[in-house]
């Protein structure tokens, strides 16, 4: 076996080999000394120049990877932002509802609108409270801005709402500043506004006047804000004038609301029935 079997034809081979080994040892042990430092500086510079083109390649590949990672993160953040915005809006709405609850003496039941249909003549909402929560037909639905509608149908856990934007919706209302009474209706030909009829021509009207429920119909309590006057005109052939009302509540935005647990006064109802019977 010739492993480790050194040459026997002269000593010069070993001299050369050990010279190189000696040089290696010197370099190894003196690499941190100042004389070698300058050499190292040059070698590192040359190595960097050689590596640079490939580094650019690697940089490009990393940039592509970073790009797809950031795109993924962007989608996730957009999703989170969208949810946070939604939560923020819900939070604001709930805060204003809480403020309303603190201000009013009426008995309120907070509810969430679970279904909404506002693109047809037969507009409706569905809320997540029903008979089990003492909800009854005819009770008004409001939010912090004002009147939304009234209960039309009641199931044990859900109720159907007739919003103010329904052709059959009627509510007895009054002008807040002068107590002039009228009836609020909705006309499908002018869907963004309500109409208030039967205001005598003698009553002075101005735009911006606030309209609220009158309580006279014994259906809604008095003082629920409905909207403000934006226009008015006299009705030909009668002594009354018609007001154009901009509702305070935006039905498209509303997600939470209160049902006012209002029950009509039975004594008033009985007297009314008796009164009507006199003329039948």
């Amino acid at each position, binding site marked *: *076996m*010739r*492993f*480790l*079997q*050194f*040459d026997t034809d002269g000593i*010069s*081979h070993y001299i*050369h*080999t050990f010279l*190189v*080994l000696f*040089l*290696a*040892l*010197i*370099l*190894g*042990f003196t*690499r*941190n000394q100042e004389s*070698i430092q300058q*050499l*190292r500086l040059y*070698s*590192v510079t*040359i*190595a960097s120049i*050689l*590596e640079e*083109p*490939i580094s650019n390649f*690697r940089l490009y590949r990393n940039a592509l990877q970073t790009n797809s990672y950031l795109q993924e993160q962007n989608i996730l953040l957009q999703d989170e932002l969208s949810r946070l915005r939604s939560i923020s809006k819900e939070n604001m709405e709930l805060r204003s509802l809480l403020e309303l609850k603190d201000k009013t003496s009426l008995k309120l039941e907070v509810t969430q609108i679970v279904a909404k249909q506002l693109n047809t003549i037969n507009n409706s909402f569905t809320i997540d409270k029903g008979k089990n929560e003492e909800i009854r037909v005819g009770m008004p639905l409001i939010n912090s801005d004002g009147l939304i509608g009234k209960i039309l149908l009641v199931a044990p856990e859900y109720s159907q709402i007739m919003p103010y934007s329904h052709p059959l919706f009627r509510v007895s209302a009054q002008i807040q500043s002068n107590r002039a009474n009228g009836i609020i209706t909705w006309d499908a030909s002018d869907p963004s506004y309500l109409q208030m009829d039967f205001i005598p021509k003698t009553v002075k009207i101005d735009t911006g006047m606030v309209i609220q429920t009158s309580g006279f119909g014994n259906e809604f309590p008095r003082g629920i804000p409905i909207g403000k006057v934006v226009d008015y005109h006299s009705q030909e052939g009668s002594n009354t004038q018609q007001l154009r009302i901009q509702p305070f509540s935006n039905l498209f935005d509303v997600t939470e609301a209160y049902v006012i647990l209002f029950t009509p006064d039975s004594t008033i109802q009985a007297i009314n029935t008796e009164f009507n019977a006199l003329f039948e």
Partner: protein
Amino acid sequence: MNLEWVKYSVVGLFILFLDQTILNHLSIWGVSFDPLLIYLIWILPKQGRIATIYTVAFLAIIQDALLDTWGMYLLSKSVLVLFFHNYLIQKFETKIFVGQFFGYSLFIAFIHNLTFYLFASITGDYATGWWPFTLILLSGMYTAFISLVTYLIYYK
């Protein structure tokens, strides 16, 4: 005048250039192979010892300079010439089997890496931890594997 060593040196420089630009990116989990060592296994038996020692020394110094390991590769590769020159001349006189070639490559890579590690430990320039294991075993095996692949490609 025999200028074989110039030819081997130029090819070696090209291999170092490839190593610096491309091959060092082929590391797997931080374990890389030494293309110059593979090249040396091929050229060791092809020249006389003095020409070989200076060719190897020249290339090892360049490698040390590029990798900032001054003296380390020079020592470990010179030791290989001292130990394996005559041995490989004898072995390469006849055709060797694939398994044998892999075995030689693996053994030479282990000795090379072990020398490198011992010298690095003495000079105290390198951290310990998993590094010796990675260098001596895994890097040696990776180098031997690539050496085997080049052997198979060459003799195909």
